[in-house]
C-alpha cells in the first residue's frame, strides 16, 4: 500500500481514544497475512496492508460491542460494517473506520492451484501487477489478474463506502452488477440433476466445522445456531451430505438481502467448497425482486426485515 505511513499515523493519532484498532500483519509465512489487534504504537508499526490482507475484519466488531474500536477496511469490508450498523449490532459512535481504496486481494486457492504446492514459501512480493513467490527454491511470477479474488475482478465498491478517515486516493470501479453473476448464470443453465449432483459431490467433504458460519460477519446467531441446536432439531449430527447441504441452504436463506458477498464463508472453508455460489444466487434474486443491494446505506433496512403492504417491485394486484 502506497499510503501505509499515512494510515499508520492516522491510527497512532487515534489510538489514545480507542481500546483497540484492528488491521493486518505478517503471518506464519511470507504468503499470508493475519488479523492484527493494535493497542500500542509498536503494534501499529507492524501493520501491513496489501493484497494478502484478505480477511474481512468486520467479523470481529459485534463481539467487541461496548468497546471503542478502530477498524481498517477495504471497500467490501466496509459494506459489512454498514450492514452491522443497519442491524444495530454495533454502535456508530463506538467504531472508528479507517478506509482506503482497494485494488484487490489475492485468492490463496488460485495461488495454490497455480503453484501446486505452497508448503515451503520462502519469499513473496506483491505489487499491483503480480505476485512474485519463491517456493522450495523455485521462483514463480503470477500475474495479479490470474490470482486476484473473483469478487475483486467484478468489484464495484473498491472504496470504503463509510469511513471516518480515508487514506490515499479513491479507486475508480468499472464493473457492473451483472458482471458479478456470470458464473452463477452459467451454473443456473445446468439441469436440476446436474446442479444437485454438483452440490452433493462438493458438500460431501464438508467436515461440519462451521468456519463458514463463524467467519461470516453477518452470522448473528452463531452460538445459537440451528445447525447444532437440539430443540428445534432441524439437523442431525450425522456426517450425511444431506445435513451438510441443508446447513448451507439455511445459511444462504439467513443471509438473503444481508450478505455483501465478502466471500469470507468460502475463504474460511478448509476444504474449499465453493459455497459463495449459494449466497450469490440469493443476492441476485433480492436484486431482481426488491432492487436492493446489501451494505450500501446505513439508514436502509434489508428487505426481509421490513414489511410493506405494497412492494414497489412486486406486482401483487394487477396480474
Amino acid at each position: 500500500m502506497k499510503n501505509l505511513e499515512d494510515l499508520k499515523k492516522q491510527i497512532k493519532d487515534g489510538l489514545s481514544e480507542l481500546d483497540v484498532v484492528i488491521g493486518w500483519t505478517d503471518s506464519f509465512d511470507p504468503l499470508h497475512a493475519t488479523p492484527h489487534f493494535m493497542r500500542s504504537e509498536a503494534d501499529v508499526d507492524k501493520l501491513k496492508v496489501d493484497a494478502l490482507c484478505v480477511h474481512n475484519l468486520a467479523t470481529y466488531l459485534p463481539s467487541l460491542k461496548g468497546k471503542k474500536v478502530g477498524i481498517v477496511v477495504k471497500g467490501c469490508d466496509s459494506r459489512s460494517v454498514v450492514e452491522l450498523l443497519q442491524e444495530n449490532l454495533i454502535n456508530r459512535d463506538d467504531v472508528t473506520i479507517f478506509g482506503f481504496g482497494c485494488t484487490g486481494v489475492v485468492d490463496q486457492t488460485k495461488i495454490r492451484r497455480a503453484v501446486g504446492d505452497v508448503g515451503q514459501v520462502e519469499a513473496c512480493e506483491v505489487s499491483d501487477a503480480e505476485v512474485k513467490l519463491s517456493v522450495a527454491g523455485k521462483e514463480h511470477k503470477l500475474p495479479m489478474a490470474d490470482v486476484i479474488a473473483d469478487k475483486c475482478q467484478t468489484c464495484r465498491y473498491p472504496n470504503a463506502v463509510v469511513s471516518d478517515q480515508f487514506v490515499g486516493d479513491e479507486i475508480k470501479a468499472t464493473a457492473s452488477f451483472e458482471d458479478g453473476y456470470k458464473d452463477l448464470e452459467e451454473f443456473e443453465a445446468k439441469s436440476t440433476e446436474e446442479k444437485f449432483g454438483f452440490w452433493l459431490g462438493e458438500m460431501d467433504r464438508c467436515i461440519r466445522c462451521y468456519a463458514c458460519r463463524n467467519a461470516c460477519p453477518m452470522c448473528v446467531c452463531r452460538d445459537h445456531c440451528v445447525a447444532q441446536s437440539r430443540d428445534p432439531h432441524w439437523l442431525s449430527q450425522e456426517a450425511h451430505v444431506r445435513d451438510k447441504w441443508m446447513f448451507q441452504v439455511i445459511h444462504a436463506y439467513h443471509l438473503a438481502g444481508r450478505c455483501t458477498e465478502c466471500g469470507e464463508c468460502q475463504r474460511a472453508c478448509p476444504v474449499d467448497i465453493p459455497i459463495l455460489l449459494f449466497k450469490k444466487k440469493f443476492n441476485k434474486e433480492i436484486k431482481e425482486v426488491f432492487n436492493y443491494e446489501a451494505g450500501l446505506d446505513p439508514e436502509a433496512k434489508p428487505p426481509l426485515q421490513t414489511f410493506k403492504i405494497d412492494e414497489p417491485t412486486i406486482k401483487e394486484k394487477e396480474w
Partner: protein
Amino acid sequence: MAKFIKSDKVSAWLEELGQKHEVLAPRGEGDSIVFKPYDAKKGFNIEREATAPPKKACFPQSETLVKFSHIKDLENPEKVALDVKETIPDSSWVVFGSRPCDARGFTMFDRVYLNGKHVDVYYKARRENTFFITLACEKGETTCFCNWVGSGPSDPTGSDVLMVPVDGGYFLEAVSDRGEALLASSLLEDGGSKQAEADKVRADADQSMGEAQDLSKAPAKLLEAFDDMGFWEEQSAKCLSCGACTYLCPTCYCFNITDESDGVKGERIRSWDNCMSSMFTMEASGHNPRPTKAHRLKNRVGHKFSYYPDLHDGVISCCGCGRCIKSCPVGVDIREIVLNAIAYEAKEKAND
C-alpha cells in the same frame, strides 16, 4: 524386511490390498486433498500433506453406536419395549499415503481409549483392524513442527509400513508385524539395494526441519498462565471460535453423543465435538464453564501441551502436523501461543 515398489505399480498394489481391506487414500477433490475410499478411476494424490487427516479411519466424523426401535405393545398401549442393537464395526482398513504425524496422532488416542481404565470398544474395533502405510516426508512445510514434539518427518511411530520416496518408486519398510503381512505382495521387489538412498532421504528430511524448540516447560507454564484471562484474551483475539482446527487435528478426540430418531426407529450416534465450539461443555442448566473464545482456546492449547502430558508421561498431544495453522481462516498459530506461554513468567517479572 525392506521392499521396493515402482511408482507405476502403486495403483495395482492398492487394488490388491482392496480385495482384503477397505483402502483409504488421499485424493484431490476440488482444491483440497481428502481421504476417500480408494477408487482406481479417481486415483490418489500423495504429493503433499492432505488437507484433512485420515482421522475418520479410526474415529469417524459420526458413528453409530447402537440402533434402536420402540416396539408398541398392542395389548397394552402404555407399554413400549425397546429393541437395541450394538453396532461394532467389523471390517478392516488400510490407510495409504498418510504422513508420519497422521499415523502417530492415533497413538495419542490410544492412551485415552485403549489403555486407560475404560476401553472404548468402538475405537478398539477400528484401531485393531486399521493398518497404516505411511509416506515419509522429504521436507517439512513452513507449518510443520513434528520435530518440536518429539517426532520427525520419517517417524514410524503408529505406522505399520513406512514408505520412503526414492528414485523411481518407494522404499518400503515393515515397522510392525502387521506391516510384514502387507508387504507380501508379488508386486513388490526386494528393497535391499535402495536402503542407503532411503536413509539419505530420511536424514535430509530431518535436516530440513530447522531447529526444534524446547517445549519441556510448556506444561507447567500453561498452568501458570491458566488464571490470567488477559493473557488468553490476547492470544485468542483473532480466533473465530469455529472449530476447523480441531476437526482437522489428528489428535483431537472429543465427541458428542446424540440420539437421532425418525418415528419409532433411531440411532445413537457419536460425532466429533470440539472445544472451540460454544456448545462444548454447555451444561443442561445453560451454564457453560468455557463461556468465551479465550476460555476455549486456552482449553485447546492447555489440553495438548499441559494437561495431557501431565497425565501421559510427558507426551504432548500434538503431532505437529501444522494443519490448525495453515487451515485456520485467520492464521492462529498454536506454536506462537505455546511459546508465548513458555515466555509468560519473564513477561510478568518485567512488569513488576
